[in-house]
């Protein structure tokens, strides 16, 4: 197995113990832990370079601006963006998706138009579309899942007609771990008037992404799910789409002129970055992609794939445990959702927590998916670069203890 265990010492929080038990952090799909390299980059920014960016004539402000724009260039190149101006810093993936819904969708959708989603989407890739559908009279249509929890494309031809103007799909489900059919949907949209928006919140952290070959129109993701700080994310877009898109927020820095009644916007990406941007967070985001680049995204993916395969194997040994997600590690990421007998997910999480193991339990911000699966809640273990097979073993042991506590024979 790809041995990344030497990296663990970069993550201070992994030294924490709870009641004498070392923390096993298996909730990276919710947010990842941060290496010292990221923590210190943020720290150093505040100690040495802090100033507001752009428009500053003094050297300190020029240093801050350079640091901020270098971070943009790093994140842009991390996803293979042809230009760094195609990358807009946002508060997170959620804000990025809302910017597309309001800035592009609201101005282009008409009554009767359709937005095509999948039932495995995260609320952040559903609710903004519901909001603009309501405002425009557009309609939402959903693709379902097949027996292996992958998006079912057999209905695609039926639902994909000229009414579809926007396809919004997750690059990877935060619940089942299944990859979304991005390539297939991009192909289906090709030559039509539909644009493809990819929710990359779970994809970008876990696999190499190259927007040029992906072919989607927009890609949204969050720094905090890929070793970076909270409070920042990004929206990447094709140049033409970004030009078409209207800003959703007005304010300082996003204008080229403001009159009493009208204003003109600054060029992309600034027209989407109203107000003081998350400067220190951008610097931390840059440090996070530096860190991932150094490991190499292929290694990241391979490590996770091996660990997930091992986890699926260990979980399969536990009686009454049902995994909700593809059994094969091809085309899936490291989020593993499961139920165990009649033990409610929150009770599983509590028992695991007692063992020092952090997993999430609930609807994972994907209620339509939970209804589709007919489960009220699942427990979810999710892996990242710092996790080890030994931690998977501790998970398996603790699940056996859960069986004991609940008296499952």
């Amino acid at each position: 197995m790809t041995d990344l265990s030497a990296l663990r010492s970069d993550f201070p929080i992994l030294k924490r113990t709870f009641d004498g038990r070392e923390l096993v952090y298996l909730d990276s799909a919710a947010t990842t832990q941060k290496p010292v390299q990221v923590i210190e980059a943020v720290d150093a920014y505040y100690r040495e370079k802090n100033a507001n960016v752009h428009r500053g004539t003094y050297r300190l402000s020029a240093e801050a601006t350079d640091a901020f724009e270098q971070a943009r260039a790093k994140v842009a190149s991390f996803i293979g963006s042809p230009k760094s101006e195609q990358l807009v810093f946002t508060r997170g993936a959620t804000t990025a998706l809302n910017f597309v819904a309001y800035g592009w969708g609201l101005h282009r959708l008409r009554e009767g138009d359709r937005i095509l989603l999948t039932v495995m989407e995260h609320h952040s890739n559903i609710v903004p579309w519901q909001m603009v559908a309501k405002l425009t009279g557009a309609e939402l249509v959903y693709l379902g899942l097949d027996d292996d929890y992958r998006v079912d494309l057999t209905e695609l031809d039926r639902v994909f007609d000229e009414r579809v103007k926007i396809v919004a799909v997750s690059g990877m489900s935060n619940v089942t771990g299944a990859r979304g059919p991005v390539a297939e949907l991009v192909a289906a949209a090709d030559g039509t008037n539909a644009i493809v928006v990819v929710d990359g919140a779970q994809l970008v952290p876990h696999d190499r992404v190259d927007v040029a070959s992906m072919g989607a129109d927009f890609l949204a993701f969050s720094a905090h799910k890929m070793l970076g700080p909270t409070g920042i994310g990004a929206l990447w877009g094709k140049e033409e789409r970004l030009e078409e898109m209207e800003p959703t927020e007005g304010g300082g820095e996003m204008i080229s002129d403001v009159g009493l009644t009208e204003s003109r916007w600054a060029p992309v990406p600034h027209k989407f970055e109203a107000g003081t941007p998350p400067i220190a967070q951008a610097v931390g985001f840059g440090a996070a992609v530096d860190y991932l680049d150094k490991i190499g995204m292929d290694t990241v993916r391979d490590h996770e794939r091996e660990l997930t395969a091992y986890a699926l194997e260990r979980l399969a040994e536990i009686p009454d445990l049902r995994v909700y997600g593809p059994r094969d590690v091809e085309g899936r990421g490291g989020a593993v959702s499961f139920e165990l007998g009649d033990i409610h997910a929150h009770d599983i999480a509590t028992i695991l927590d007692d063992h020092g193991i952090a997993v999430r339990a609930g609807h994972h911000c994907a209620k339509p998916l939970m209804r589709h699966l007919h489960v009220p809640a699942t427990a979810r273990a999710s892996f990242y670069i710092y996790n080890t097979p030994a931690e998977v073993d501790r998970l398996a042991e603790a699940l056996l203890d859960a069986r004991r506590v609940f008296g499952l024979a």
Partner: protein
Amino acid sequence: MSPLDELYREVILDHYRNPRHRGSLNGPHVHAEGLNPSCGDEFALDLSVEGDTITDVAIQGQGCSISQASGSMMADAIVGRNFDEVEDMIRKFRLMMTIDEGDNPVDPERPGAVLGDLEALQGVRKFPVRIKCADLAWTTLTDALAKARANA
């Protein structure tokens, strides 16, 4: 007993798996619903009332063992009681759930000793994140009682 075994006592698992008074009431009754937005647990309650006495109860809900067992045990405990007694019980239950950890959890003289089966929920206090689970049924009951008093 480990804190975990104290949390998931036999009686709690029994109420979780075999909730008492499950269903809904026909005829005149007050209805109240509770939701724990942070975890999605749901609980609903029907109360038949005569004068100031609760004559019948039905519960519905879904969620973790703690929230559902707490509701089932509560339903058992309040049938046949009058409003004042039930309010006293709510007060005692809340007191029990907030007693300092240092306190001897099985002292029969302690507040809450009158709660019978419900005493089993004391184990939750070692798991502060879960206290709101135990509390959901009781918040819903407080609501229902306010409605019942308003009707009376």
